[in-house]
């Protein structure tokens, strides 16, 4: 199994899917000749031709709308929104159309498509290259929301998303495109190569949508995380010697509630972690579900570790980012209570 970083893995997933299904088409801003600003679609135009991989106008609304029309025709569009922060001009088409067409046509039309977008902070991107808008999509019935945290999962989940009959919002944690991140921005950058999850099966394979991964077993605390924060959380529990079970959700909708319940029932404590602002972040839903379903197992309130309820301030990136110190405080709190 070749070692890949996340970009290579995503690129490979596109190729596998495009080779298998001539109806898969890939487009978005700068994705054609150039291969995307993060190079995820590099070489696709060369291999599959301009009719299947091409640049689009700078119009996120138009990109999504075109994908709707293509999906209505019978194609499987995979579109890139250059940064998740720029998805809002396409929000109406996603919420009012992509998410609702199967429902409002009672299944006569469906909207198989993947809307890929790099998201999250930690890359000096400031307000408009760092956002984590996942909860704006988890609230919308009809959408699936997937966030990988390793090259292995990125490939397997993307292929699964492309093959899925429903529309999938696929957020890619851009901070860990090139290597995992423990939250210590002042330590040397690690490449994926040394991480076991950089070993990515060749050819076709899928990681099922709707299944979380227990990435660390533990007995005294359950940590729910996704994307970059999986790695930050893992590093923190190691550092503080907490015997935590760390669950990488991988899919936010539909959520793998079974894995979560099983774990919290065992540990009696739960920490929920994400980069997005706290108020109405996806963490709120996780906390609600855990307290609704595991209340009598809980020994302490579920604690949220999140970004602040402010826009993302670039010069204060590391005061904003929920890094090791915020993790530490939260771990102490959730274990002390």
């Amino acid at each position, binding site marked *: 199994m070749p070692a890949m970083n996340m970009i290579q893995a995503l690129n490979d997933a596109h190729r596998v899917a495009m080779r298998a299904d001539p109806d898969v088409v890939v487009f978005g801003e700068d994705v054609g000749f150039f291969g995307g600003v993060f190079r995820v679609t590099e070489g696709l135009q060369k291999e599959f031709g301009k009719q299947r991989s091409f640049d689009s106008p700078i119009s996120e*609304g138009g990109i999504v*709308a075109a994908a709707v029309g293509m999906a209505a025709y019978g194609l499987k569009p995979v579109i890139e929104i250059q940064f998740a922060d720029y998805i809002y001009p396409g929000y109406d*088409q996603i919420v009012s159309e992509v998410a609702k067409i199967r429902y409002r046509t009672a299944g006569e*039309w469906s909207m198989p498509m993947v809307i890929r977008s790099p998201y999250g902070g930690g890359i000096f991107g400031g307000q408009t290259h760092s956002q984590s808008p996942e909860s704006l999509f988890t609230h919308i019935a009809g959408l699936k929301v997937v966030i990988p945290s390793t090259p292995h999962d990125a490939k397997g989940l993307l292929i699964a998303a492309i093959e899925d009959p429903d529309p999938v919002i696929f957020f890619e944690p851009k901070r860990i495109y090139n290597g995992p991140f423990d939250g210590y921005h002042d330590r040397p950058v690690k490449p994926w190569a040394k991480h076991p999850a950089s070993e990515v099966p060749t050819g076709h394979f899928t990681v099922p949508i709707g299944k979380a991964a227990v990435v660390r077993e533990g007995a005294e605390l359950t940590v729910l995380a996704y994307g970059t924060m999986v790695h930050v959380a893992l590093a923190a529990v190691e550092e503080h010697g907490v015997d935590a079970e760390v669950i990488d959700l991988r899919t936010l909708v539909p959520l793998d509630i079974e894995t979560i319940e099983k774990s919290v029932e065992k540990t009696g404590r739960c920490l929920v972690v994400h980069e997005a602002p706290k108020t109405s972040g996806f963490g709120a839903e996780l906390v609600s579900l855990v307290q609704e379903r595991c209340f009598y197992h809980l020994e302490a309130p579920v604690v949220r570790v999140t970004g602040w309820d402010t826009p993302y301030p670039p010069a204060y990136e590391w005061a904003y980012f929920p890094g090791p110190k915020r993790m530490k405080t939260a771990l102490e709190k959730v274990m002390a209570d």
Partner: protein
Amino acid sequence: MRGEDSQKQPNRPQLSLHVPEPPFRPGDTPDFSRLQIPAAGSAPRPDVAASAADVISLATDLVRVLGDDDRAVGPWDPKLDADTLRKILRDMVTVRIFDDRMYRAQRQGKTSFYMKATGEEAIAVTAAAALDRDDMNFPTYRQQGLLIARGYPLTEMMCQIYSNAGDKLKGRQLPIMYSDKAHGFFTISGNLGTQFPQAVGWAMASAIKGDSRVAVGWIGDGATAEGDFHSAMTFAAVYNAPAVLVVVNNQWAISSFSGIAGAERATFAQRAIGYGIPGLRVDGNDVLAVYAAMRWAADRARSNLGATLIEYFTYRAEGHSTSDDPSGYRPAGEAKAWPLGDPIERLKAHLIALGEWDDERHQAIIAEIDAQVRAAQKQAEKQGVLPEQGKDNIESIFDDVYAEVPWHLAEQREQSLDEAR
């Protein structure tokens, strides 16, 4: 006004905001004599392969075929045979009778809502005649004529309006928000404008696949102001998409006249110029002109020559919907004063002028269609009307959110069934 912005310079002209106002308001006597109506037959008809630059004048002109003498005239005459014209006439009459019955059904409390296409029936009905049967439409809510012209069963339409047991959309859409793939009719969205760039996406897909089918996008004059209009035009131009983009300019958007969408300064067809695609302005109440323009645009698209924007100029003769009373914002007599007339009357007169029709036959089809619509209604109402719905099959509301019902919806389904008990 706050401090820093308050220093006006007295030696400079004082600006003021222009707010467009329709020529007539309730109480006024509508007078359309200032309206420029070019003579029928006067607009040139370029070859479908003409460049966009060569057809610029058609964006401000008005393609008309039916003259005041009820005869077809000029290069746009599509030379349709009488059977085709009679079919179009019949379909228009069907739309009007259908609309009247369903409007009444709403007033009788059998459904919650209805929208008529009165005065603009020619457009959708005739477009269907000009298109190939497998071309795909992305309609808005006044294109019921497409379905009727393509033979979609009236009972099916009514079952949707009643959200009853026969409603294939399972009560999930407001009345009249039809969807039927087999009749090339994409699901109507309540969100204005969204369908317009979707049509272009479908057309792009057709081109990607080396297909020969074209897509037709439909939008109202008011909705052209949405960003989606621009997306559609941009993508259509950039990728030379085989699409026909239709603006139905019926001059009103609920209570706002078309000036609020920009019509004081330019025609909607002119928008095309800025994207380098042809724009045609067409008399939407003239069946022959409607047909000829749609055919020209569809032929062009099918020949891989790209998209066309057609503005069908018409007039919304009745209220916006059953929720609207237009006498609050325009003179009651405005519809009658509209100089481009009634599309049904105009086609009828043409067929009579051709010796292919007469009043008797006309009354006969009205009676026949009326009976047919009533029969369909009876049939539909056997399966229930809206106020009775929503009690059975409650579990169905959890279907089709996704291809499969996920755990959280399954739980909610259980809960809802408990509630229903």
